[in-house]
């Protein structure tokens, strides 16, 4: 067990190294730089700035310097936002995005899994049709449409929730709902199909032959078996939702991390691009690791590598 976890961590670090290197190369391959503006700066000023941020060093040196700083936990200064470091940007944005994300993920799990189970249990009857209809709508309607509808209903029409901004808990509700729409629908479909597969298994028939109550069969015999694909999806989904959504955070004017993914690339804000990519990848790799650990708990047949 211990040996395989160490092995996993080493391979996770390798993945991170590849991601950082590829991002670094791609980023510098885009034409322009952080200080390219429509109105060109005087050459001397440009030289000065580039010297200050060490952008005139050869790329391998910049790469080596970046790693040296990264290993000390320093993601560097932002080029666009003066006197702010990437560490600060993440430290400010991530808690906001993570809070929103946590609510959205909780909603989608608490709604999606029972909805999928209901669909499977009442296959081809009205609860199933209702769940599948809503799930299809949930998957096809983009989050910005859902967000707009929610704002229209609850903020403009019923006037019970704030339309935008961030602050007290009621500000979380609408963006969390908008953010949860797609994953909820996806989880419901995933749960339904994997539940249907599980309910057709021989061991469910055995449980029925033992006279076990239908709810117990569903809860004890079927759910754990049916959750594997859902958990697989949940890992990367949590990483993506916790780091914020550009669309939702723009619509609701939420000071999260999401917008930096897009704006930093426009700005050629090299350190921010790299910083949040590193952050997101680390989170993603970590979540996948947690998913693998969850497998071990869900399915006793799965054993960590290195054991028989």
């Amino acid at each position, binding site marked *: 067990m211990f040996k395989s976890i160490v092995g996993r961590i080493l391979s996770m670090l390798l993945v991170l190294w590849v991601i950082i290197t590829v991002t670094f190369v791609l980023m510098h391959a885009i034409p322009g730089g952080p200080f390219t503006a429509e109105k060109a700066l005087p050459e001397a000023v440009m030289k000065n700035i580039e010297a200050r941020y060490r952008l005139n060093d050869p790329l391998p040196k910049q790469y080596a310097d970046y790693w040296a700083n990264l290993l000390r936990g320093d993601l560097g200064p932002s080029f666009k936002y003066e006197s702010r470091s990437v560490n600060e940007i993440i430290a400010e944005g991530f808690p906001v995005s993570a809070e929103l994300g946590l609510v959205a993920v909780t909603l989608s799990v608490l709604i999606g899994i029972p909805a999928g189970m209901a669909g499977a249990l009442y296959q081809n009857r009205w609860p199933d049709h209702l769940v599948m209809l809503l799930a299809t709508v949930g998957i096809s309607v983009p989050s910005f449409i859902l967000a707009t509808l929610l704002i229209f209903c609850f903020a403009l029409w019923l006037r019970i929730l704030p339309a935008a901004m961030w602050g007290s808990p009621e500000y979380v509700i609408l963006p969390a709902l908008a953010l949860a729409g797609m994953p909820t629908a996806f989880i419901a479909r995933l749960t339904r199909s994997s539940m249907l597969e599980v309910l057709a298994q021989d061991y469910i*028939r*055995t449980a029925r032959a033992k006279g076990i109550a239908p709810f117990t069969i569903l809860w004890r015999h079927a759910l754990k078996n049916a959750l594997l694909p859902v958990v697989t999806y949940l890992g990367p989904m949590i990483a993506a939702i916790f780091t914020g959504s550009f669309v939702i955070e723009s619509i609701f004017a939420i000071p999260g991390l999401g917008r930096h993914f897009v704006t930093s690339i426009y700005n050629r804000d090299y350190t921010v691009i790299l910083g949040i990519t590193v952050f997101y990848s680390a989170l993603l790799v970590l979540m996948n690791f947690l998913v693998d650990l969850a497998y071990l708990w869900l399915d006793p047949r799965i054993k960590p590598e290195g054991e028989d």
Partner: protein
Amino acid sequence: MQPALLTVNNLHVHFRTYAGTVQALRGVDFSLAAGEIVGIVGESGCGKTVTASAIMGIIPSPPGQIVSGEAWFAGRDLLKLSEKESRRLRGNKLSMIFQDPMTSLNPVLTIGTQLTEPFIEHQSLSQSEANERAAELLKLVGIADGATRLKQYPHQLSGGMRQRVMIAMSLACNPSLLFADEPTTALDVTVQAQILDLLKRLNRELNTTLVLITHDLGVVASLCQRVLVMYAGQIVESAPVHNLFAEPLHPYSLGLLQSVPRPDFQGKRLLAIDGHPPDLLIPPSGCTFLPRCRFAMQACLEAPPLFDLAENRQSRCWLNHPDSPHDARVALAIGGVR
């Protein structure tokens, strides 16, 4: 014959599929005496498993539907019970073991969890009492280190071991009727013999009525007292086991017996029953075995009833009609000679 433990009358089961309605059971009648071992034989799809499932109340519905029939057990018609009442009998007074022990146990639950469930469900025992009983059950079916096994998962056990666990599970509440649906088909030969011995011993010791569903006539010969031969959703012959093997009355039974390899026919070609069983989406109006029967005659265009004959024997063939011009036994015996 003792008073019947189970009496099944005119059982019809249909399955609605996209292709149409499959008439899986088309009038099944039989009865079982307490403590006997009865074999149900027939080729795949003839309705053996459906019969047992219908009596157990575990036909998946939809698509399955019990169209008509009665199954009297302990003064009650099993087919008229509510789901809740039926559930109280299942795993309790009636139980069933299945063909493939590899897939019939839940892979993510321990043997203990699965084995103690019937006690908790039907006898309201506490988990610790149930654990004790489960360990005793494992000993009964020949698994020694019960306490360890209870903590293990199915994948940590061999196939034979898992089938023993299945049997233990079905015996938990001391059922009066046990259906064993091809209990040895998925096991290798030496393990098969052990499992059959186990079933025989349990029948003797616990007086459990055993219905053995199989297509292995060797198993039937070694274990059963009485045999029901099924074909196309009906029972075509019912006989004590030695009578069936000595002088089958129905041409299908004869065909089955002739298709078993025998040491004294070494070097000769094995006889097979030509053709296929009828499509139960549109069952033929006459005798269902007609197209494959070597003794077919004009009368067979009309479906024969199940004739009651001597010595607990029944046969669904016009040759066994009391006014039949042929002596059926003679006819089949001649047909049996190669």
